[in-house]
């Protein structure tokens, strides 16, 4: 379980988030949606405890499996050694990872679909591959909470699809609380139970189940772009909901 209660964060005189409350219990997945500059990252940092709160409090376990957008890459570690770092909290300050920890790290790499990179150098992997390794590290912490910062931001459509499928396999056992931020409401539709919409102009962010929050009206006021929800037939015949922006554009010819 992770969340914020009545949290307020100010940078100088600017209020970034005000009296924000939400919680993600084990077994549910939250997508934090909003355009740039509405406090998505601040909310995430506040949840993780990296951001001092000016009011309210944070509810979180001691160790949260955190997947940053890009990992540190000025040191050259093997991907497996990066993943085993997830065990640090269990090992204490003077502890060394043993065979058991490496076993956990390998199975985490397996779950993240990154087993084939185990012996590659982390800094030589592509952005998407690094993200899988970082996800494996978050899994290796053993935390029941996973927090992903813009997991799909740097990915092409194919890899977005793979990432969302991966998120859904992690979601399936319904034993973890998962939070991710994204620009794309379709990611929320495909892989989240709840959504938190960072509304413009100081309105209270909207928090609730995806079916109630991801609606054209809410999204229009969220992004300031006309939105349509369409029903599409998936590859095996089932219907999916998808959200499309109806960009106005200007006919040039």
């Amino acid at each position, binding site marked *: 379980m992770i969340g914020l209660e009545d949290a307020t964060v100010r940078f100088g005189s600017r209020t970034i988030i005000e009296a924000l409350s939400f919680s993600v219990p084990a077994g549910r997945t939250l997508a934090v949606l909003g355009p740039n500059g509405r406090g998505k990252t601040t909310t995430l940092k506040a949840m993780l405890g990296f951001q001092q709160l000016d009011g309210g409090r944070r509810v979180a376990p001691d160790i949260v499996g*955190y997947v940053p957008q890009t990992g*540190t890459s000025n*040191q050259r570690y093997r991907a497996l050694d990066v993943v085993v*770092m997830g065990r640090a*909290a269990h090992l204490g*300050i*003077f502890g060394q990872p043993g065979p058991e920890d490496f076993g956990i790290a390998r199975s985490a790499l397996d779950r993240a679909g990154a087993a084939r990179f185990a012996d*590659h150098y982390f800094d030589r992997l592509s952005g998407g591959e690094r993200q899988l390794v970082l996800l494996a590290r978050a899994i290796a912490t053993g935390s029941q909470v996973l927090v992903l910062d813009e997991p799909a931001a740097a990915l092409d459509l194919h890899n977005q699809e793979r990432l969302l499928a991966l998120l859904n396999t992690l979601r399936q056992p319904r034993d973890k609380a998962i939070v991710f931020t994204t620009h794309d409401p379709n990611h929320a539709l495909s892989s989240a139970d709840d959504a938190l919409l960072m509304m413009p102009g100081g309105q209270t962010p909207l928090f609730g189940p995806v079916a109630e929050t991801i609606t054209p009206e809410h999204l229009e006021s969220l992004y300031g772009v006309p939105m349509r929800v369409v029903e599409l037939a998936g590859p095996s015949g089932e219907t999916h909901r998808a959200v499309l922006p109806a960009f106005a554009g200007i006919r040039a010819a």
Partner: protein
Amino acid sequence: MAALTEDEAAPIVRSHLARQTLVFAALLALFAVAFVVSLCVGRFSVPAGRALELIWLGATDPWRELTTIEERIVLLVRAPRVVLAALAGAGLALSGAALQGVFRNPLVSPDILGISQGAAFGGALGIMLGIWGFPLIAMVFISGIAAVILVGLIACVNGRSETITVILSGLVVSSMFSAVVSLLQFIADPNTSLPAIVYWLMGSFATATWERTLIAAPGLIIGGVLLWMLRFRLNILSLDEAEAQSLGARTNRERWLVFGLIAVIVGSQVAVSGIIGWIGIVIPHASRLLVGHDHRALLPASVVLGAGFMVIIDTLARTATAAEIPLGVITALVGAPIFAMLLRNHYRERNGS
């Protein structure tokens, strides 16, 4: 990137292990050869076999009466000097490797914390006041540690310190102390204390005795062992602040623990052998090239290479010319070009990848 199957991945692990073992064996061999050669060469040369025999006799029966001149030279003059040089080199290289890890910056050296300049102030003041022997060593050690504490006091804002603030505070404290050292040199008696101060500032193992070696050893060994125990934690601390914290590290406190251990190591070294630059930056770099960035391999490799390198440099210092060349001069002459080369390779590789 070509996808690897599990079967192809196994040989990579095995060849990685084999390579590490080979590198460590080579480093240990280098150290052993340097150690023995250093016992043998000098104005009075001793054959290698005889030197080893003497060491064996000395180790099995330390309180034996030393009668012949070669016994006295090997066991009372050269052996403590080589052991002290090895310990100092190992300590400096280890400190450099750990510091570069926690600063996430490969270009910092242990001097950055102000220890050396603080210690230099203590040493210069002590020599001017006519203090010698153990009180001088204690004074140097304490002023080195005091400099680090001062850096900490300046750098800590609201109970935490950014790495860049620590680096700049170290710079401030270093310049302050080095200004005072210059002042002390300016007013020192040019016939007695000035040469002593200048020579001491350039670093030397010439005054090494078993007594001095034993004074420095506890700090160097305890600090070194504790840093080595932190080797996995250093991997965590070398990550970005947020990542390290998310993995459970209390970064600020743990970083200062590392600084404290480094202060003990460098303080002990400076107290008995003066300021020796460059080891703490060149050796960790060379070790990274040999065994990679993982601190679990980097720290032991730095220890062995640092010890071997320091013994070689010290042997050169006392045998290359009739008079002893100050260590600081040789480490800079050897270290700076190596460092320049490493720097170029580092950026060439980075741009290439």
